[in-house]
């Protein structure tokens, strides 16, 4: 049985997000320069900014470095099995439709092993917010190629460069039926926090892709120091709200499009279930 690390002692003064984190577990496991911490912090700021009571939130994650977030947030949270965060979260939402359900996980967890769950939850417009930390790699297991690794990038399993094309996640989300779709990077953290806030308040399946560095398992093999990655985010991105997701491939040579791609109203899974099943079963 593992033990939690001992508390580091009382902070002289508190960080403004200390009330939403399990401070006794900080410092967290993420490597120096890893972008996951910034995405997590932005998510907590967004939760705070909604002014919704904390006990009306729950966070669900799968397996991976990104998925560790569920263990650091101080609300009821679930660290599930690999790829299964979305079906687990769907179960919570069906049983307790009033909860704000946030899925926080990595690109490998959500789009490789968990890809099928993603498209079906989007198709049904399950009312939840899915935040995907896209670091272009399987970080936790040592840097294997992912479904989001750019063509030609070096990974432990593609030593000559990746021969395959990556997913365009905003297009995948839109085509599957997501009703809110956005993409930001950790450098655009104010926009990211606003987008997460908007996504939480949006009724329906909201998807936010966040580009974040994994300096240890992606950067090191592709000659990118963390600050180089952040400079790419500043110099090789184009902010274009309302852009067509079809042109949103992650290609830093051409420029990566950021912004809110989709924000539309569609009946949610719960609306449809209420109209077709709950109502009839009460007769």
């Amino acid at each position, binding site marked *: 049985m593992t033990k939690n690390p001992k508390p580091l002692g009382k902070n002289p003064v508190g960080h403004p997000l*200390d009330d939403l984190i399990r401070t006794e577990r900080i410092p967290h496991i993420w490597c120096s320069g890893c972008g996951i911490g*910034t995405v997590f*912090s932005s998510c907590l700021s967004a939760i705070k900014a909604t002014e919704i009571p904390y006990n009306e939130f729950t966070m669900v994650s799968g397996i991976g470095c990104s998925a560790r977030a569920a263990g650091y947030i101080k609300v009821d949270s679930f660290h599930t099995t690999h790829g299964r965060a979305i079906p687990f979260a769907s179960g919570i939402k069906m049983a307790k439709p009033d909860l704000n359900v946030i899925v926080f996980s990595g690109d490998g967890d959500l789009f490789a092993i968990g890809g099928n769950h993603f498209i079906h939850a989007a198709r049904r417009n399950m009312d939840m917010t899915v935040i995907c930390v896209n670091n272009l790699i399987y970080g936790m297991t040592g840097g294997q190629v992912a479904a989001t690794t750019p063509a030609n990038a070096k990974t432990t399993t593609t030593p000559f460069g990746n021969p395959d094309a990556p997913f365009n996640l905003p297009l995948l989300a839109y085509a599957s039926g997501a009703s809110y779709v956005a993409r930001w990077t*950790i*450098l655009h*953290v104010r926009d990211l926090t606003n987008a997460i806030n908007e996504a939480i308040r949006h009724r329906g399946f909201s998807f936010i892709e966040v580009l974040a560095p994994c300096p240890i398992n992606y950067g090191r093999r592709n000659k990118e120091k963390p600050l180089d990655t952040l400079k790419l985010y500043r110099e090789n991105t184009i902010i274009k709200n309302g852009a067509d997701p079809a042109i949103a491939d992650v290609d830093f040579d051409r420029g990566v499009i950021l912004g809110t791609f989709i924000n539309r109203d569609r009946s949610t899974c719960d609306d449809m279930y209420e109209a077709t099943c709950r109502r009839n079963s009460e007769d």
Partner: protein
Amino acid sequence: MAFWRQPLDTQEIQITRGEVSIIEDRCKGCGYCIEFCPIHILTFSDHFNKKGYHPPKITKAGECVNCHYCEIICPEFAIYSVNAADAAAEMDTSISAS
């Protein structure tokens, strides 16, 4: 030709000042706050923290504009800023209360 009015009420504008706090033992030395502070008032300190990293230190304390960027880019919850006027007021009340 004279302008019909001053474009900005420059005399009356007050720049917000911030007070930065650093929780040194949470820092992993990524340097993001140092690189992206818009007025470049942070730098690496010479000493090590508990985990063996060099946390940031403030070079020009009075010049922070309380933009909070260091706070929101930090992946470690290790740095934050507060409005300097509020911090001073809090100090006063805690002193008078004790």
